[in-house]
């Protein structure tokens, strides 16, 4: 492009959006909302062997005001859910949620009177990690998927929409799924 020729070799031009995305995904500050056994695996992920610091997510903040990634690890009971919601509300935008483990994703083994059967009944979740407890590598994989999600957001507006409906991946897929719902003749691939 003409502008770069004028500026020379030491300057790269890009969009503000790209820089913002690059900064956000490489410096995610997790807020570990650890309740039960998954919290121990999360602590193991943060420790020396499976170092989460290599992904930029070293600064764990227990204060929601300073964090942008909430990792819900462990079973959430009906007594704990209002606390979780309050903390989620206190986190500033943009924020992402990882639901770690079977209990946070769907209630897990415990289909009882006191356990919320999945935090996605009350929170928008961006990445679910199956496992009981999931291995630390799975948590790192989820972190990388969140980084991919951040990469795919085209603008802040769309990012806001996607946060409301985290299931939507790209526009093409949306059209496919819409036509599948409308009962198109040919069966959809997925």
């Amino acid at each position: 492009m003409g502008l770069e020729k004028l500026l020379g070799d030491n300057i790269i031009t890009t969009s503000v959006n790209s820089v913002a995305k690059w900064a956000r995904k490489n410096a995610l500050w997790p807020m570990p909302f650890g309740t039960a056994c998954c919290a121990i695996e999360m602590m193991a992920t943060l420790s020396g062997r499976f170092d989460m610091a290599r992904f930029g997510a070293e600064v764990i903040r227990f204060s929601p005001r300073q964090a942008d990634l909430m990792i819900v690890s462990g079973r959430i009971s009906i007594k704990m859910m209002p606390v979780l919601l309050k903390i989620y509300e206190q986190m500033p935008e943009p924020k992402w949620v990882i639901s770690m483990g079977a209990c946070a994703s769907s209630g897990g083994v415990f289909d009882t009177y006191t356990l919320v059967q999945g935090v996605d009944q009350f929170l928008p979740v961006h990445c679910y990690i199956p496992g009981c407890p999931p291995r630390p590598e799975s948590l790192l994989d989820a972190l990388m998927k969140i980084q991919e999600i951040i990469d795919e957001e085209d603008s802040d507006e769309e990012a806001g929409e996607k946060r409301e409906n985290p299931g939507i991946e790209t526009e093409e897929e949306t059209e496919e799924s819409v036509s599948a719902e409308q009962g198109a003749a040919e069966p959809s691939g997925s």
Partner: protein
Amino acid sequence: MPEMGTSLTPEQITERLSKQFGDELSVHLPPGKSAAQVAIVSRESLEDTLSFLQSEAGLEFDFLVDVTAVDYLHFDEPSIQERFAAVYQLYSTIHNHRFTLKTPVPEDDAWVPSAVELWGSALWAERETHDMYGIRFKGNPDMRRLLMPEDFPGFPLRKDYPLRGRGERDAFPQYLDSGPISGGAGKEGGGE
């Protein structure tokens, strides 16, 4: 330091108890080999029995291991005629012997005298038994619910309370300034 030589078997303990309390106490031997005898006392004589077990030389149960209850609604146990039975597990660190004590508790008038004067560990153990079964412990200074939320309707471990609850887990109040949170793939207040 427990002295190994002075520990008594449950049969010997029930013998000492029968000598002291006579008719107020009945003894039940659960089935199975090497089962330990269990003493059953009425709730009127529970306080005396417990303080006797704590203070009597040779018994000296200084450690209350656990207080819990059993709901015999679906199980016809002949030794317990009422719906509930409060169960006390006792241990003596001095003599290294254990003992189990039961008290029948009727459903309509479910109260038992509290053991909190004798052992401090009864404070929370009774609180949890109250939370789970609804049995009132008379004389306990703290009868708030322990594990369930304060306004939870019902007593979970009773046999007529279903495992999945009665809808409390989908419809609890969420304390937010902006109201209940919506969005995501969630369903609010829906079924399972």
